[in-house]
């Protein structure tokens, strides 16, 4: 099967938001984020550790009548526990992401394909790499934080927990 690659897109400029998790800097398309907020108003979520989506989903957030599952950025990227202070609420998605800090918004001109030598989970985590002042910054794939299947599992778990609570 031919590998689908993210080819460098020249001329297609894109605004990205820079953020950090565990000392690493990442970028996410500004269009993929609907809100950056503090950690106030989050509800602790513990659905067990049997499924990887459960293990990395640490809070829920009710926003405009919609439940967002808040994923630990550190756990998603298999990093040691960090000190999150901000939440990136993703647009058109059931996921939100805990990050240590957010930086500024920058404009990138070229999204470089992740080199083919990288064969692990990172192929799903990242859309590619941006070069900012000589630094390679991974541009995250917002749909990788929670897949549709994982969201379904989380919703079912939440409903089960609410049933138990009643």
């Amino acid at each position, binding site marked *: 099967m031919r*590998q689908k690659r993210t080819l460098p897109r020249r001329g297609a400029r894109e605004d990205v938001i820079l953020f950090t998790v565990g000392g690493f800097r990442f970028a996410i398309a500004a269009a993929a984020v609907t809100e950056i907020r503090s950690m106030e108003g989050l509800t602790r979520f513990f659905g067990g550790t049997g499924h990887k989506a459960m293990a990395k989903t640490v809070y829920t957030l009710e926003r405009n009548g919609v439940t967002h599952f808040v994923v630990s950025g550190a756990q998603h990227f298999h990093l040691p526990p960090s000190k999150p202070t901000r939440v990136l609420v993703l647009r058109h998605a059931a996921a939100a992401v805990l990050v240590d800090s957010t930086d500024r918004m920058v404009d990138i001109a070229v999204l470089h394909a992740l*080199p083919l*030598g*990288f064969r*692990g*989970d*990172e192929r799903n*985590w990242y859309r590619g790499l941006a*070069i900012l002042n000589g*630094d390679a910054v991974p541009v995250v794939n917002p749909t990788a934080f929670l897949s549709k299947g994982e969201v379904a599992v989380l919703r079912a778990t939440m409903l089960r927990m609410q049933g138990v609570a009643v």
Partner: protein
Amino acid sequence: MMTDDTNTFVLFPLGKKRFALPAEKVTELAKPDRLQTFPQRTPLMTGVLVRRGRIVPVCDVAQALIGRDAPAGKFYLIANRQFESRREWTAIPVTGECELTNVQPQQPQSKLPEYVLGVLSLENEIVEVLNLEKLIAAEASA
């Protein structure tokens, strides 16, 4: 002097040992550069270099060949890897100067890992010639 390209190898040091790659697989020896890391899960891959606006992945084969106590690399040997129809540069940290040699490789006398293409019998040492793809694949499946 006429040389047979198929018998030309780049010798590179990793700690106290030297290994070889077929010369046609090697693009250049690069000076020390800043390794840039980000979270990823591919065995042996340690990050990327940004060289003249080009992103070059870094593959630390020393971890597989001499263990985790390998000394830090001083230079990068830039090798070509083949991915189906695409070629990609890969930087391999090496611990010292490299050398080009033209010598007939020999089949190893003893059983060696599958990633050893052959051995070069030099004056005072036996140097293993590596198949980079097989070495990386072996580490990925380990």
